[in-house]
C-alpha cells in the first residue's frame, strides 16, 4: 500500500477558465501532505484532479501529467473508476449514505468489487476499517443503525472508515474537519497521524495550525489576483514552510495568519 504521486505541468480548466496553472509536485508515500492557501485558489480543484473526481463537473478538464507510481492516471486507456478505487476521498461535509446502516456504509465500496463476499469476510473488513478509523469501540454495538444517527465527528470517521475499507493507495481529504467541533477535529488529526503509516495522505486545510500539526510536507497555493489562475507557490518540509519559507508570498500568508 501507499504509492507516490508525481504531478507535472498540470493545468485545470473549467470551460475556458483556467483555475489552476502549471502545478508540478511530488507527493511522498506514507506521509501527510497539506495544501494551504486562501480560499478560491484552487486547492480543492487540484486535489480532485488527483483521483479524477473533477470530471464530475461537466466542463472540467486537465492537461499535464499525474503519475501514481508507474501509472499515468490520465492515459487514454485508464478508467477513472479504477483510479478512484486506488485513490480514496473524504469530503468536507461528512456524507455517509443516509439509507444505509453503519455496517453497510463501511462495506459499500468492497461490495462494488466483490458482490459475493462471505459474511465473515465482510465482518472482518468492517471491523478492521472501523478500528483503523478509531470508531470501532463507539459503534460496535450498533452496526445495524443508520450512519446518519452518529455525531458529525463520528460520521466523518465513518466516512474515513468507508474510504479505507477498500484499501486504497492514497487518501485525499478536502477540509475534513471544517464542519467539526474542536474535539472531533483532534480525533481526526490523531487518526490521520496513525493512517499515514499505511497510506499516502493529502489534506486540504484552512487551518494552518492543523497543517503544522499533522503534515510532513506543505504546499502553498496562491492567486495572482481575482480571475487569475491559482498557482503552487512553494512546497517543502512543513517545518521549513512555517519557519523560513523561501518565498516572500508564503511568509506573508503564514505570518498574516499566524502572527
Amino acid at each position: 500500500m501507499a504509492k507516490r504521486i508525481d504531478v507535472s505541468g498540470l493545468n485545470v480548466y473549467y470551460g475556458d477558465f483556467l483555475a489552476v496553472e502549471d502545478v508540478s509536485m511530488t507527493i511522498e508515500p506514507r506521509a501527510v501532505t497539506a495544501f494551504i492557501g486562501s480560499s478560491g485558489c484552487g486547492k480543492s480543484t487540484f486535489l480532485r484532479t488527483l483521483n479524477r473526481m473533477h470530471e464530475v463537473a461537466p466542463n472540467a478538464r486537465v492537461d499535464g501529467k499525474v503519475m501514481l507510481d508507474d501509472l499515468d492516471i490520465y492515459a487514454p486507456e485508464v478508467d477513472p473508476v479504477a483510479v478512484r478505487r486506488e485513490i480514496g476521498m473524504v469530503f468536507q461535509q461528512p456524507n455517509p449514505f443516509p439509507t444505509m446502516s453503519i455496517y453497510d456504509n463501511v462495506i459499500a465500496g468492497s461490495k462494488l468489487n466483490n458482490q459475493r463476499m462471505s459474511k465473515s469476510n465482510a465482518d472482518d473488513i468492517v471491523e478492521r476499517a472501523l478500528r483503523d478509523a478509531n470508531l470501532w469501540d463507539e459503534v460496535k454495538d450498533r452496526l445495524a443503525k443508520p450512519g446518519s444517527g452518529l455525531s458529525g465527528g463520528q460520521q466523518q470517521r465513518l466516512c474515513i472508515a468507508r474510504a479505507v475499507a477498500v484499501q486504497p493507495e492514497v487518501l485525499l481529504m478536502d477540509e475534513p474537519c471544517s464542519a467539526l467541533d474542536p474535539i472531533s477535529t483532534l480525533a481526526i488529526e490523531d487518526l490521520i497521524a496513525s493512517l499515514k503509516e499505511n497510506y499516502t495522505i493529502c489534506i486540504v486545510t484552512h487551518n494552518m495550525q492543523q497543517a503544522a500539526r499533522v503534515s510532513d510536507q506543505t504546499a502553498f497555493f496562491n492567486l495572482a489576483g481575482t480571475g487569475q489562475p491559482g498557482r503552487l507557490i512553494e512546497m517543502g518540509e512543513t517545518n521549513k514552510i512555517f519557519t523560513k519559507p523561501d518565498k516572500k508570498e508564503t511568509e506573508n500568508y503564514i505570518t498574516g495568519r499566524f502572527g
Partner: protein
Amino acid sequence: MTTTDSSTTPRAPKGKRRIGDVVFGNTARGSGILILAILAGVAAFLIIQSFDALSANTANFLTTTEWDANTDADEEPAFGVAALAFGTVLAAALALVIATPIAVGIALFIAYYAPRRLASLLGYIVDLLAAIPSVVYGLWGIGYLVQELTPFYQWLSDYLGWIPLFAGPISTTGRTMMSAGIVLAVMILPIITAISRDVFLQVPRGHREAALALGATRWEMIRMAVLPFGRPGVIGGAMLGLGRALGETMAVAMILSPALIISPHLLQSGNQTIAAHIALQYPEATGHGVSALIAAGLVLFAITLVVNMAARYVVARRKEFSE
C-alpha cells in the same frame, strides 16, 4: 423557550398584530378546514345516498359479483361490488406494474444520462403526455392500440399461457384488461416520471460524490446513492399514479368489453372497473340503481383512501434511514 418570562425574551410585540399575518393565517386555516369539510361532505353524501339501495339489497354487497339493481319498487335488488372492486384493483395494479419501471428508467435517463438539451426536451414531452385528455387515450387505445397489440397477446399466450394471467384463448377484439392496463400505464407514466425525476435531481451532491469516490460506476452510483434516496419519492409518485388509475373512467369504459366476473385472465375479455361501471350504468339506472351505483362509488372512495394511507405508511417506515 416559550415558557420563559415574556418580558425578557424578544418576541413579536403583542398588541401589534400585522394585518398581513392575520389575513394570511386565516386564509390558510380556512383552506385547511374547507378541504376537510369537502372530504367529510363527500363521504357523508356517499353514505347517505347509498343507504337506500344497501338496505334493500338482498345479496351480500361485498361478495356478490352480479349487478341487479335496476329494479322496480316492488322487486328486490341484488347486487354486489366484488367483481367491480377486483377489476378496479387489477387494472390499476397492472398499470402500476407496467408504468413504474418505465417511469423510473426515463427519470434516471433524464436526470443522469441524457445530455442537457435532450433531457429538457424529454422532460417536456413527458409533461405533454399528462396534458392529453383521457377520452383521447381511450380513442387511441380502442382505435389503434388493441389491433397492434393482438399479435403480441398471441405470442404471450403461446409462450406464457401456462401462467393463468396470460392464459388463452385470447380475445379477438383485444378489448381486455391487458389493453386497459397498458393504456392506463401510459396515462400515469408522466406523473410518476415527473416526480421521480425531481427526487433524483435532489439527491445531494455529497452522496453521489461519495459513491463515485469509492470507485462506483455511474450505474453503481445510482444504485448506491440515487435510488435509495429517491425511493420515497418514487413511491409517492407511484401512489399518485395509482390514484389516477383507480379512478380513471373514460379510457377504461371505452376499451374494456365489460363482464361482471372475477377473472385473472388478462388476455380474455371480461372484468370491469367501478368507475367505468358507474359511467356506463348511470344513464340507464332506475329504481335502486342510482343509489346502488353510489354505493359502488363509496367503495372506490374507500379503496383510494386505503391506498393513500398505505403509501404514507410505506414512505414513513423508512424515515429513520432517510434523513
